């Protein structure tokens, strides 16, 4: 139980790990979305390229925007950027640090989508089958231009009756898939090398500035959280006081209007406190009606 609470508190307090968690979830969601998406190339000359490139580039934009939206730190950064300076100067290095960390995290899911798409190959086959040179493939070499465009456009569709068993179709398909996978692996390699170098070489440049920027960006985040908690706590106390005042004022009003005699029997002390002087049905009804029709002013002085 304690352990569970500790883990909970750890995740809550450390914004960065929450952000990393969200980043990981989005990456998994990206892969899941790709596998559950039913890719179906239109196999028509004008539509193939638009469809193929659209599927390759539009979902990454969506994932990037989702990464920005779901990241709490982006709001913090925007607020810090747009706030009036007041008594506290703005440090551009902090804002730049927050911006770069947000962008890095938001880029993970789109990059994963693009790489998975390239390694799978369907998108590129769909987009570029119409741009292949027909002379290179025996089955398409001696066909008229218009027809060859049609046939090439149908290459991604394995079960099409025209090109189903055509060996040249398989050849084009294999060729394009090979290019696509090569491109995918190259991009992955380049990105990993870039990430490795960035992480390794960073301490060589401006380490002190970096530590400062990281500290203050953490500080701004924690300060915002604590402010929100303090406001919640304050509104709870405010509401408590307001309601107590309301009950008290109702009790005074009832005393004024009913001239009730001093009672011989008092209910037990504890219960009297909780009853707050409201002891019969009419009084309760009046209290509830007043609560609706005339809420007390927001003033507990």
């Amino acid at each position, binding site marked *: 139980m304690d352990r569970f609470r500790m883990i909970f508190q750890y995740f809550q307090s450390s914004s960065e790990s929450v952000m990393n968690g969200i980043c990981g979830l989005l990456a998994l969601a990206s892969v899941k979305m790709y596998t559950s998406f*039913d890719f179906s190339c239109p196999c028509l000359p004008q539509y193939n390229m638009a469809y193929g490139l659209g599927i390759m580039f539009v979902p990454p934009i969506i994932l990037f925007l989702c990464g920005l939206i779901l990241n709490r730190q982006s709001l913090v950064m925007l607020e810090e950027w747009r706030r009036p300076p007041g008594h506290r100067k703005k440090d551009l290095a902090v804002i730049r640090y927050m911006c770069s960390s947000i962008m890095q995290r938001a880029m993970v899911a789109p990059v994963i989508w693009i790489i998975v798409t390239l390694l799978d190959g369907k998108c590129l086959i769909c987009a570029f089958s119409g741009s292949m040179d027909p002379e290179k493939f025996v089955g398409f070499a001696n066909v008229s231009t218009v027809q060859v465009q049609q046939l090439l456009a149908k290459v991604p569709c394995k079960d099409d009756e025209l090109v189903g068993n055509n060996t040249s179709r398989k050849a084009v398909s294999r060729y394009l898939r090979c290019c696509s996978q090569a491109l995918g692996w190259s991009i992955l390699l380049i990105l990993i090398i870039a990430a490795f170098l960035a992480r390794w070489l960073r301490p060589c440049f401006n380490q002190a500035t970096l530590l400062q920027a990281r500290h203050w960006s953490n500080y701004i985040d924690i300060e915002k959280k604590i402010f929100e908690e303090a406001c919640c706590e304050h509104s709870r106390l405010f509401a408590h006081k307001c309601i107590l005042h309301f009950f008290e004022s109702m009790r005074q009003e009832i005393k004024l209007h009913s001239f009730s005699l001093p009672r011989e029997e008092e209910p037990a002390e504890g219960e009297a406190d909780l*009853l707050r002087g409201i002891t019969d049905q009419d009084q309760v009804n009046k209290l509830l009606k007043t609560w609706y029709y005339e809420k007390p002013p927001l003033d507990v002085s």
Partner: protein
Amino acid sequence: MDKFRMIFQFFQSNQESFMNGICGIMALASTQMYSAFDFNCPCLPHYNLAYGLGILLVPPFILFLLGFVLNNNISMLAEEWRRPQGQRGKDPAVLRYMFCSMAQRAMIAPAVWVSVTLLDGKCITCAFCTSVPVESLGNASHPHLSQGEIQRVLARIPCKEIYNGQQLIANEVAVRYLRCISQALGWCFVLLMTTLAFLVRSLRPCFSQAAFLKSRYWSHYIDIERKLFDETCAEHARSFAKVCIQQFFEGMSTDLVAARCHLPRKAPADAGEAAEKLLGITDQGTMNMALKSWHRCKPPLNLHPPALPTGNGWAGEGQPPTHPSAPRRETAAYYSWV
């Protein structure tokens, strides 16, 4: 059990994350509903469009309304909107904030349904199969077919088993074409929604941050105040009931003593708490009478001790009339519910 309660308390205390949780559950429910739904295109010329567009647009509307219904804050918003001004002014900015945050959450499940439907493609294929451009995709020069016939043949595109227009236009070609359009629409829709959400979220700090902080604070305040008031009333009702029942038992026991003229009993010295709790009712007959009286003649909702039946001059002068109105109160007790 403890762990479960802690999770529950965490979600309850943090209203926003609770609402986000409901929102996420509804989005998942929406995808689950779509995959469980058995889509059955009618494959008839005029019914296809109605069916397809109906499945595309009616469930999102239902999910949107459901999103409002499941949101606890809707009654809070309505109450704040309709309450009379009284001593506390109304702030339209707070009302707008509450409505916007509820509407945003309620929009998610319908948007998920529409995206999943468009990306799957069955609805658009069903709705627009009669509008496929036969000239570019098939053999428009197919002879001896009137417009109506062509429409009927095209309407059967989604139903592969009964499709008989292979010469007019190949079924796979038409389905691929329609599905491609549907998926393009789907991705554009998702992109549009995401861009809107991004703009709404990122433009706010640039323009109205102070007003936003104010509205958020007061909307939380109204929520907390309502909860605390309910808790206070519940506490009050509990104490009221306790005292009322205590007075009932004491009343019964005094009546019995008066009726039977019991000799003053020597209470055993060491009975203590147990004797107190018995409230003077110590045998079967008495208990049965107490229970019968509780059922037949519940006590009035009034914790003041009633004035003595033989008026002694004190009853009057503005004292709330207990006896004449006791029957009224008894009837009212069944209807008015605190």
